[in-house]
């Protein structure tokens, strides 16, 4: 106990004395600025509204132009002219084509054997997506990746998340990455056998399905239950990123989360447990 008290005294001395003069006034002023920002936002909201109308008008015009162009193209292409489908993508198509479509990595000029011709518009070209290094494609065609979610919001009635992908490494890969980062020496092992590599700060925004399945592993309200992966609702999940999250979930906005998406639509979200 004496040792504990001595350590307390040492840490107390090292952490120094606290000067709180003017601090509370500064806190109140900052809070006022943020509240005032909200109150005074009506004018800027009106401007935003006008901008929105302008952009929407342009978007409607472009959409109409594309529609007319497409209809004209359909009329033209439907007259028995062949359609040539050429792609130089090498990744696996995310959506199976309704008809076989051959892909080739050869330049366009050498694709004489690697093309498909059809006589109608029913041919569907493939849409291939280059995956991030933090993503993997699952057997069911879904794409899975882990990262740190910085925004969860609803816009225009649709749900969205913004995620900063990271790589979850274990074993030798984790050790190698930690050595490369200079956090451990060669021959040492990372604590708890995992390492999260997050070199790319790029954020990606995905729409979230209305029927998304979400689970958490460290929400303390489930601490009585030793099992992992507790299902939670979208509203609970969204509250983690609110200004005043639940007191027992304050850490969850900073946890790493796995997302699984079907195309651009997120269908599953799971918290990654960190020891």
């Amino acid at each position, binding site marked *: 106990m004496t040792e504990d008290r001595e*350590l307390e005294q040492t840490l107390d001395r090292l952490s120094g004395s606290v000067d709180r003069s003017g601090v509370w006034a500064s*806190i109140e002023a900052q809070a006022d600025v943020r509240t005032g920002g909200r109150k005074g936002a009506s004018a800027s909201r009106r401007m935003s509204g006008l901008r929105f109308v302008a952009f929407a008008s342009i978007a409607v015009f472009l959409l109409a132009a594309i529609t007319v162009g497409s209809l004209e193209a359909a009329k033209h292409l439907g007259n028995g002219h062949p359609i040539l489908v050429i792609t130089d993508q090498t990744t696996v198509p995310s959506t199976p084509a309704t008809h076989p479509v051959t892909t080739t990595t050869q330049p366009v000029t050498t694709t004489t054997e690697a093309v498909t011709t059809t006589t109608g518009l029913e041919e569907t070209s493939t849409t291939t997506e280059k995956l991030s290094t933090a993503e993997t494609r699952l057997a069911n065609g879904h794409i899975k990746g882990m990262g740190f979610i910085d925004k969860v919001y609803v816009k225009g009635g649709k749900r969205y998340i913004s995620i900063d992908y990271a790589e979850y490494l274990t074993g030798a890969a984790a050790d190698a990455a930690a050595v490369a980062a200079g956090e451990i020496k060669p021959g040492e092992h990372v604590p708890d056998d995992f390492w999260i590599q997050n070199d790319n700060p790029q954020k990606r925004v995905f729409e979230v399905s209305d029927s998304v399945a979400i689970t958490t592993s460290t929400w303390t309200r489930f601490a009585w239950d030793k099992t992992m992966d507790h299902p939670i609702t979208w509203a609970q999940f969204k509250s983690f990123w609110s200004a005043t999250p639940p007191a027992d979930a304050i850490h969850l906005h900073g946890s790493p989360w796995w997302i699984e998406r079907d195309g651009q639509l997120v269908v599953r979200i799971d918290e*990654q447990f960190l020891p």
Partner: protein
Amino acid sequence: MGCSVRADVKPFSKTGSVTSLNDWPIGESGLGMSTRYARPEDVFEHEYDRLVKALTIVAGDREEASDAVQEAFVRLVLGWDRLATYEDPAGWVRRVALNQIRDHHRSIGRQARLLLRIEEQYRSPQGASATDEGIWERLMRLPLKQRTALALHYVDKLTAREVAAVMHVSEGTVRQHLHRALQTLRESHEGSGQVITP
């Protein structure tokens, strides 16, 4: 979740009298008392100094700790209507401030953080004695989790159970963090021949 990796709590091997956490009565801490605050400034009045001191040890930097605690108090003021109903608004402030520090550390790239850490290790408090500078360096070399447990327990005066609740780990894990931290401090003390208390 198929990808969950749970390195569950390892058994705590208590050796000697490295720490006497069991002797600490729960009522001594702020969380245990669950003080009712009428206004956010009351929370500030009672908790600010202790939080800044504890988080200075965690962050290794007084300015960063002050910023994190002040930002947490700004959010407390903004959300007071709701937060006033919480059982422990001070605990909420503590977690928000700790998250700020954790996010700050995470946002810095690994390489940059390494450089900063090297610098931080030698940025000891102003006016510190040579002995204190040595202890400070060793403290800053401790892993963040161990340092957090140490600061919350010995400076913020939380019990191991309360530290566990704040850090979202088991009580056994907290004891393990404290045990390892104290052991490291002791070993480096024995190696250096300097006078160090733990």
